[in-house]
């Protein structure tokens, strides 16, 4: 333990943290008896209700890096950061529920690479499975290291202690209960994060005398800067702190990155595949979308309140001198400002739970993809079900050991791990092109799907490296020399998606398509989309998708 820390915990806080660890381990041991078959271990028996699948779907994305990072981003960029929760999430979640879920669910696939196997054959599936497995396990290591650093900075905990205790706990509960454990703990984490963080905006708005008081104090602290309008400053990249034009938000973020992430990243899609029926699978992302729209309350609003109430200005990572805090310290600083003993323990437990759920999500997705999409088709085709379950349990442990190695690697080469994290997001942009063309266009061929995915993925890596080695190329890729990292990300994703789609279309038109009889259950036009029957309007997924979309529009109007 070190003496430099932002927060000191008392006995009640420690009791709350210890209780959380005992609870997740207890749940893992309890669920072990139910995770005996492959479907149970890897897909939680496909018996989750829409609410459980929906909250788990959302929580798999609501990790602590997300909370800390976006609270910091809202201090830096203001309410523009909320776009990642609104246009950068809601349309994609509704699209997954209404348009894509029927194909994932009817095909009875166990994973996204599994869908590619059915639609395109082994080449595209293997490419996607290998990149996903590799990146997922490295991401788990990045998460682990990030957690250890946060715990060291905020609480003064030893880095090795944080890495080993969290990994052992995650390893035990995921290897025991498989996806059952991961989903149960994600639902617990959902409640912990809300109850742990919601008090900050409540007390913050009391301190600033409401929204108007907060805006007035921000203007007083940062004269001439606009932090509280979501769209009106996006007409030109020079007018907002992100250096972003509205086309980057609408097309790069809304149409490509978020669609890619929410509809093809298996880490989140796996949760919905665990739903007990198609209606629940369609409803799960729609339920998640309502809570996703509300997440800015506990992530973005604390960052804005910090702009109004913190006496010192925070600085970017890397330029802080002794005694100064960085943007990413916003959430811990706000916790320390408003939370005393007990509440502080709850807030810290929420962060720990978020980190551990992130690791659990990564290793459970890794073990599924390794076992079903790489080991079974390429190494051992016809083993008994129990063999694959055993492989899944071992994979969880092995995956965590590799993650721990990646965490220690990250200590020595932080910048390399940052690159891994950035690149991971952009593998999914071309993957979205491959999946969506496969689902909606019967003419797409196996050769087209593979070539498009390969070119899209390589172009994403290529553009990333070109800008790293020649920063002037940024003006070509992001269409502005003012573009910050996030704007560059948006445009890189957009170009790699467009390349993937173009190559897929051209190669497909030059090659022979599958007969329609082989596309049943996989492609629009060759699949009978299940009817919603005589369900009352209020029970129809499409009705709730419409309500969510209307609410999204209303929020944009309010914060224009």
């Amino acid at each position: 333990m070190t003496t430099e820390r932002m927060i000191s915990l008392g006995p009640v806080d420690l009791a709350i943290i210890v209780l959380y660890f005992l609870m997740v381990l207890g749940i893992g041991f309890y669920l072990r008896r139910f995770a005996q078959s492959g479907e149970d271990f890897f897909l939680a028996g496909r018996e989750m209700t829409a609410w459980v699948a929906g909250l788990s779907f959302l929580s798999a994305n609501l990790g602590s890096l997300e909370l800390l990072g976006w609270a910091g981003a809202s201090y830096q960029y203001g309410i523009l950061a909320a776009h990642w929760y609104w246009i950068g999430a809601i349309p994609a979640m509704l699209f997954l529920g209404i348009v894509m879920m029927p194909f994932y669910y009817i095909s009875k696939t166990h994973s996204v690479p599994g869908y590619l196997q059915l639609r395109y054959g082994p080449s595209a599936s293997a490419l996607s499975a290998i990149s996903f497995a590799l990146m997922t396990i490295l991401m788990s290591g990045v998460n682990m290291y990030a957690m250890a650093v946060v715990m060291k900075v905020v609480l003064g905990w030893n880095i090795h202690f944080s890495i080993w205790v969290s990994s052992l706990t995650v390893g035990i509960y995921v290897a025991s209960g498989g996806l059952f454990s991961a989903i149960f703990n994600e639902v617990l984490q959902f409640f912990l994060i809300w109850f742990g963080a919601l008090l900050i905006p409540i007390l913050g708005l009391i301190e600033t005398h409401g929204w108007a008081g907060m805006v007035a104090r921000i203007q007083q602290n940062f004269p001439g800067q606009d932090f509280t309008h979501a769209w009106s400053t996006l007409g030109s990249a020079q007018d907002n702190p992100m250096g972003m034009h509205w086309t980057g938000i609408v097309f790069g973020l809304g149409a490509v990155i978020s669609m890619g992430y929410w509809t093809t990243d298996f880490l989140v899609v796996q949760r919905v595949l665990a739903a007990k029926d198609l209606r629940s699978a369609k409803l799960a992302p729609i339920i998640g979308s309502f809570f996703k729209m509300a997440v800015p309350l506990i992530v973005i609003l604390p960052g804005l309140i910090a702009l109004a109430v913190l006496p010192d200005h925070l600085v970017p990572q890397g330029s802080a001198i002794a005694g100064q805090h960085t943007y990413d310290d916003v959430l811990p600083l706000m916790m320390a400002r408003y939370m005393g003993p007990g509440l502080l323990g709850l807030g810290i437990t929420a962060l720990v739970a978020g980190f551990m759920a992130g690791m659990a999500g990564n290793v459970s997705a890794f073990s599924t993809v390794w076992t079903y999409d790489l080991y079974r088709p390429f190494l051992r085709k016809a083993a008994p079900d129990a063999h694959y379950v055993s492989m899944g349990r071992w994979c969880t442990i092995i995956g965590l050991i590799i993650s721990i190695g990646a965490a220690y690697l990250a200590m020595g080469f932080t910048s390399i791990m940052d690159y891994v994290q950035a690149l991971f997001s952009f593998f999914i942009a071309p993957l979205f092109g491959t999946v969506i063309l496969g689902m909606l266009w019967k003419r797409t061929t196996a050769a087209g799907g593979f070539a498009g995915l390969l070119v899209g993925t390589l172009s994403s890596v290529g553009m990333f490296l070109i800008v790293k080695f020649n920063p002037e190329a940024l003006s070509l890729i992001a269409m502005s020399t003012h573009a910050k990292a996030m704007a560059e990300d948006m445009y890189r994703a957009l170009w790699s998606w467009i390349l993937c789609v173009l190559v897929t279309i051209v190669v497909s038109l030059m090659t022979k398509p599958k007969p329609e009889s082989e596309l049943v259950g996989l492609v629009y036009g060759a699949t009978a989309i299940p009817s919603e029957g005589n369900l009352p309007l209020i029970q129809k997924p499409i009705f709730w998708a419409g309500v969510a979309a209307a609410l999204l529009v209303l929020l944009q109007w309010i914060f224009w």
Partner: protein
Amino acid sequence: MDLLVTNMEKHHIIPVWFFVGVMLLAYGLLILGSGLAEWSNPPHTVLAELHAPVWWGGLLTLIGGAYVAAFRPKT
């Protein structure tokens, strides 16, 4: 395929909501107790005079208790 065809429930697992209730109830009681104990000597935080641990801990206790009661395992 009917949209309402539901997979047979293969396991009788205690609902996750029960575990959520146990967790919120335990945390609520700890935070409420801590808030009451420091009532006359609140911590040096902003707005400490509002005694947030008391009402927030009370809220968690109520919600947790309701979840435990509603989703407790039936024998």
